[in-house]
């Protein structure tokens, strides 16, 4: 086993362990921190796959943005020191069962499938390539989604503001 595969397993283990902790920890703040580590682990996985750009995006958006937002909303809506109430026993059992069955099914689906790694000459995943393809107006260009994303973001922002500021005046 080479160093590279060791690193892969370490990263995967890290991702799964922290993700598991994130969904089972009782304190909500800790849960957010575990989620953060899990996301960082995913970024590490991207680094390992030499997708540096995606890794950086992952860190910027998830860690720098979403997790911070989640933490803020935790402060805003929770007694962050309290433990969250435990799910009922039956519910836990059924969830575990469902999840296990689902996992096995998927595993059985994946296992027989033989992926043939492509022999095409790989394209370098540099920011330059990403950029030029993103902005190109040809058939494989992504310029339309690129512009649509801005509308999506605009919609999201307006939505957020409308929703979040709705009750403000009455509160005061």
């Amino acid at each position, binding site marked *: 086993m080479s160093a590279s595969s060791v690193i892969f397993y370490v990263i995967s283990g890290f991702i799964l362990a922290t993700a598991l902790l994130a969904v089972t920890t009782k304190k909500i703040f800790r849960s957010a921190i575990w989620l953060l580590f899990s996301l960082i682990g995913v970024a590490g996985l991207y680094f390992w796959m030499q997708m540096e750009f995606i890794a950086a995006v992952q860190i910027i958006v998830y860690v720098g943005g979403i997790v911070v937002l989640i933490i803020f909303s935790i402060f805003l809506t929770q007694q962050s020191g309290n433990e969250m109430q435990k799910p009922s026993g039956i519910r836990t059992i059924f969830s575990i069962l469902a999840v296990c069955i689902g996992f096995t099914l998927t595993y059985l689906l994946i296992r027989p499938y033989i992926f043939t790694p492509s022999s095409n000459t790989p394209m370098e995943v540099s920011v330059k390539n990403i950029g030029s393809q993103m902005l190109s107006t040809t058939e494989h260009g992504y310029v339309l989604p690129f512009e649509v994303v801005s509308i999506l973001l*605009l919609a999201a922002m307006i939505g957020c503001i409308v929703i979040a500021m709705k009750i403000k005046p009455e509160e005061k």
Partner: protein
Amino acid sequence: MGSSSLIVLLIAGIAFSAGGIAVARIFVKGTKNPQKGQPYECGIPSDGTPWKQFNVGYYLFALVFLIFDVELIFLYPWAVVVKDLGMVALVEIIVFLFILFMGFLYAHKKGALKWV
């Protein structure tokens, strides 16, 4: 030395902090007293816990930030190629930024960027 430097630096960072804290742990024997572990609040016993619901005035900023943060990640690939693509890229980004700027103006107008 490539991406392995990340691992080296990660280990170095952890080792450095762990080493420093371990030295303090091993060699320094602090005294114990009942007040030491209590939170410091200007010498007055703290009343209530901070771990409760707490009005964050800044969350709207964080919301808006998140949107613009995503915008930034689209700008990086764009910025790299803009010189080569020339005018096309400029037009595209003007449309892109214009739409977002609308959002910014809206947020401004609605007072989301004002302090609450």
